[in-house]
C-alpha cells in the first residue's frame, strides 16, 4: 500500500515518523529500573542497538515522563520489583493511558510472575540478567502494536472514503455507485482533507473502494444536521425521507438516513435507560453482550487510567453538548459492532421518546430501553466498549473535548462528573490524515468533523476505530479516525494490507444489528474484532485479557475497579470497543 509510510509520517504521533523512517534505529525506549547497575547496563545495551534511551529509576517518574511526552516513547521496559510502585501496576497504567508496548523484566523467572506479566498486558517478559540479544528485537512489539492500530484505523478510514466518494459523485442515491470510487475518493479526500492530516486516507483508499457500496460516515456535523432535522420533525414523525429533505445534504440517501435513524433511536433509548439507572453510562453502544463482554472492560480501565493520569482535565468542562457531540461522532463512526451485542434500548426520557422498534432490531435485547433490562454496565458508546463504568467514561469525556465544538444536542443529561460517565464518548481514533467524511462538502473540515481524539485530549491513545463491526479505541495521535467498515478495510491508512476480509464480510452480509456476530478477526487476535483493535490495554492486551487476574490490584482503588470490571467481562482482552450498536447493521432493517 502506498502511503502507509506517509501515513505514519503524517501521524501526529511523534514517534511514528522516527520509528518508521529509520526503523528500528531511533526507537525511543524508556527503561525503568530501580537498580542503577541494571539501568546502566540496559542503557548501554539499548544504545548499542541504536535505540534512543531514556532511563528512569522510579516508576512514578517514568509515568510522569510518559504523560508529559505523550508520543515521546515507543516502548517501555520496566522491572517488576520496584520500591515505589509495583512494576505490574506501572504496566497497567501505561497500557491504559498511553497504550505503549511494555516489556517486563525480572530476575524472577517463576511461572507465576511471568504469567502475571501476561495477564497484565506485558508484551514481553525478559529474565534478568538481560542479554543484548533480547533487546535487539524489542522493536517488533512496537511494530506489532502499530500494525494493530493501523488496522483499526484502516477500517474506519475506509468508511470515510466511501462516504467521500459518495458525496463527490453527487446526489447519487444509488448505493452502488462505486464505479469511480477509487478515483473519486482520492480526489474527494484530498479536497476535503487538505486541512487535516493529509492525504493518508485518500491515497489509500483508492483501490478497493469499488467493491462495496459506499458507506456514509456520519461525521459530527452531519449528525448534528440529522439530529436537528429529527428534532424539528419530532422523533415520532421523523421518517427518513423527511429527515433527508430537511437535512438537505447532498450525497446521502434515504437509506443512509434510515439506518442512521435506527441507530440513533437505539442510542437514545439506551441513553434514557442508562441515565435512569445511574450507574450505567449511557453510551452509544449497547453493552456488549456475551460476545463482547470484554470489550467494555477495557474502556473502563482506560477511562480510569485516564482519570488517574489526570488527563481528564477537560472533563468537567464538557458541556452536555459534548456528549451529543460524542454521540454524533459515535454515530458517525459507528462501524459495525460486531457482535452479538444487544443493543439495549433506552428510554427516551431524556430527549426523545419513541417507541422501541423492536421489530426492527432483531437483535436488540432490551426492550423499551428500560434500564432494568440493562443488566450490565452499559457503556453505550459508539465504538466504545460498552461496559465502561461511569467514572471511567469520565476520562473519555475529557478526551473528547475536541468534539464539543460540534455543539451537538446534548442527548443525555449526563453529567460529566467523574462519578458517572455517561458520556458517550465516542472515542474516535483520530488518525492523521483521516478525514471524517461528512457527506456533502459543506461540512466543514474542521476537526470538529471528526471524532478526533486529539492526543492532547485526555485520551490520546485511544482512538475509536470502527472496524466495520466494531468500534475500537485506538491510540490516537491526534489524527482523525474515520471508520471505514468492511469494505474499505483495504484502505489502510497506513497501507495495511487491508483489514481482513471479515470486515468485508460483515459489510456484505449486511448489517448486523448491534449484535453482530461477526467478529472481525483481522487475523490478529481471536475472532473478536476487538482483538484487533484492542490496543488499549497495553501491550497485547488481547492475548492477555482472558486470563486477567485482577486480584493483584484489589487494593488499588483505581485498578481494582478496572480489574473488577474486567473480571466481569468475559474475554476482557480487547475490551476496547465492543460496540453493541452497529449503525450500519441496521441498514437492512425496514425503516
Amino acid at each position, binding site marked *: 500500500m502506498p502511503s502507509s509510510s506517509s501515513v505514519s509520517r503524517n501521524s501526529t504521533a511523534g514517534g511514528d515518523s522516527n520509528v518508521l523512517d529509520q526503523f528500528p534505529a531511533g526507537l525511543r525506549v524508556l527503561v525503568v529500573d530501580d537498580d542503577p*547497575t*541494571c539501568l*546502566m*547496563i540496559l542503557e548501554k545495551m539499548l544504545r548499542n542497538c541504536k535505540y534512543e534511551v531514556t532511563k528512569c529509576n522510579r516508576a512514578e517518574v517514568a509515568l510522569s515522563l510518559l504523560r508529559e511526552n505523550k508520543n515521546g516513547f515507543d516502548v517501555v521496559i520496566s522491572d517488576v520489583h520496584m520500591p515505589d510502585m509495583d512494576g505490574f501496576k506501572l504496566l497497567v497504567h501505561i497500557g491504559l493511558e498511553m497504550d505503549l508496548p511494555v516489556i517486563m523484566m525480572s530476575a524472577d523467572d517463576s511461572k507465576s510472575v511471568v504469567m502475571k506479566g501476561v495477564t497484565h498486558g506485558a508484551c514481553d517478559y525478559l529474565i534478568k*540478567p538481560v542479554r543484548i540479544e533480547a533487546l535487539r528485537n524489542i522493536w517488533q512489539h512496537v511494530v506489532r502494536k502499530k500494525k494493530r492500530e493501523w488496522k483499526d484505523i484502516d477500517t474506519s478510514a475506509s468508511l470515510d472514503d466511501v462516504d467521500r466518494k459518495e458525496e463527490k459523485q453527487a446526489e447519487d442515491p444509488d448505493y452502488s455507485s462505486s464505479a469511480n470510487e477509487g478515483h473519486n475518493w482520492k480526489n474527494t479526500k484530498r479536497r476535503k482533507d487538505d486541512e487535516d492530516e493529509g492525504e493518508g486516507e485518500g491515497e489509500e483508499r483508492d483501490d478497493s473502494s469499488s467493491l462495496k457500496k459506499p458507506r456514509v460516515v456520519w461525521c459530527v456535523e452531519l449528525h448534528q444536521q440529522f439530529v436537528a432535522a429529527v428534532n424539528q420533525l419530532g422523533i415520532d414523525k421523523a421518517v427518513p425521507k423527511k429527515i433527508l429533505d430537511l437535512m438537505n445534504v447532498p450525497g446521502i440517501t434515504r437509506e443512509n438516513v434510515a439506518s442512521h435513524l435506527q441507530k440513533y433511536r437505539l442510542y437514545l433509548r439506551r441513553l434514557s435507560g442508562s441515565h435512569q439507572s445511574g450507574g450505567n453510562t449511557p453510551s452509544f453502544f449497547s453493552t456488549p453482550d456475551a460476545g463482547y463482554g470484554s470489550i467494555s472492560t477495557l474502556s473502563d480501565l482506560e477511562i480510569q487510567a485516564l482519570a488517574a493520569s489526570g488527563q481528564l482535565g477537560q472533563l468537567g468542562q464538557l458541556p452536555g453538548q459534548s456528549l451529543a457531540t460524542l454521540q454524533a461522532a459515535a454515530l458517525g463512526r459507528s462501524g459495525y459492532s460486531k457482535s452479538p451485542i444487544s443493543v439495549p434500548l433506552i428510554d427516551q426520557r431524556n430527549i426523545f421518546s419513541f417507541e422501541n422498534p423492536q421489530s426492527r432490531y432483531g437483535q436488540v435485547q432490551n426492550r423499551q430501553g428500560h434500564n432494568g433490562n440493562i443488566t450490565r454496565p452499559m457503556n453505550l458508546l459508539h465504538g466504545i466498549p460498552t461496559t465502561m463504568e461511569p467514572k471511567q467514561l469520565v476520562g473519555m469525556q475529557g478526551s473528547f473535548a475536541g468534539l464539543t465544538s460540534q455543539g451537538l444536542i446534548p442527548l443525555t443529561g449526563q453529567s460529566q462528573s467523574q462519578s458517572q460517565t455517561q458520556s458517550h464518548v465516542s472515542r474516535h481514533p483520530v488518525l492523521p490524515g483521516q478525514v471524517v467524511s461528512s457527506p456533502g462538502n459543506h461540512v466543514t473540515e474542521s476537526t470538529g468533523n471528526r471524532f478526533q481524539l486529539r492526543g492532547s485530549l485526555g485520551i490520546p491513545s485511544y482512538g475509536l476505530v470502527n472496524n466495520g463491526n466494531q468500534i475500537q479505541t485506538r491510540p490516537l495521535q491526534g489524527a482523525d479516525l474515520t471508520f471505514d467498515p468492511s469494505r474499505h478495510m483495504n484502505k489502510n491508512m497506513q497501507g495495511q494490507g487491508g483489514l481482513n476480509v471479515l470486515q468485508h464480510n460483515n459489510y456484505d452480509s449486511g448489517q448486523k444489528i448491534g449484535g453482530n456476530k461477526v467478529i472481525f478477526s483481522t487475523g490478529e487476535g481471536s475472532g473478536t474484532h476487538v482483538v484487533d483493535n484492542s490496543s488499549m490495554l497495553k501491550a497485547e492486551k488481547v492475548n492477555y485479557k482472558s486470563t486477567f487476574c485482577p486480584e493483584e490490584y484489589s487494593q488499588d482503588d483505581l485498578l481494582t475497579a478496572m480489574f473488577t470490571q474486567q473480571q466481569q467481562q468475559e474475554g476482557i482482552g480487547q475490551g476496547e470497543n465492543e460496540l453493541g450498536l452497529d449503525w450500519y447493521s441496521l441498514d437492512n432493517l425496514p425503516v
Partner: protein
Amino acid sequence: MERNQMHRQIANTRKSFFDQGYLDEQFIQLEELQDNSNPNFVEEVVTLFYRDSARFLHNLDQALEKRPLDFNKLDSLMHQFKGSSSSIGAKKVKTECTNFRAYCNAQNAEGCKRTYQQVKREYTTLKKKLEAYFQMSRQVGPIEMACRPR
C-alpha cells in the same frame, strides 16, 4: 615482553574467573558493550555495582539483626541483590544468594545467617579480584580488555 606478559597475565586472570566460576556469561556481555565510546564500561559498571550493592548488604545486616527474622523482607532484599549481582555476572555471589533465599523460604534462620556470610564472602572476594584485574587492564590499555578469546 613485559607488555605481552602482562597481556597474557590479564587474559589468564580473566579466564580463571570463568573457569573458577566467579564470573559467567553476563560478564562477557558487559565486555562486549565496551567500545571506544565507553572504553572503561566494564569497570564502571562493576564499580557502580559495588557501590550500590553496599546498601543491600547494609539492609540485610539490619534485617538479620531483628528478632524474629522477617523472612519475606529478607527474601525480597536478597532478590534485589541477586538481580544486581547477576547483571554483572557475579556467578558465585548469585549462587549464594539463591541458597540464602532457599533458607528464607524454609524459614530457616540459621541457614539464612550462614549463607548470608557466604554471600558476603563471595562478594568481597570477587570485588578484590576484579579490582586487581581492572588495575592490570588499565596498565596495558583498554583495548586489550575488549578482546576476548573466541
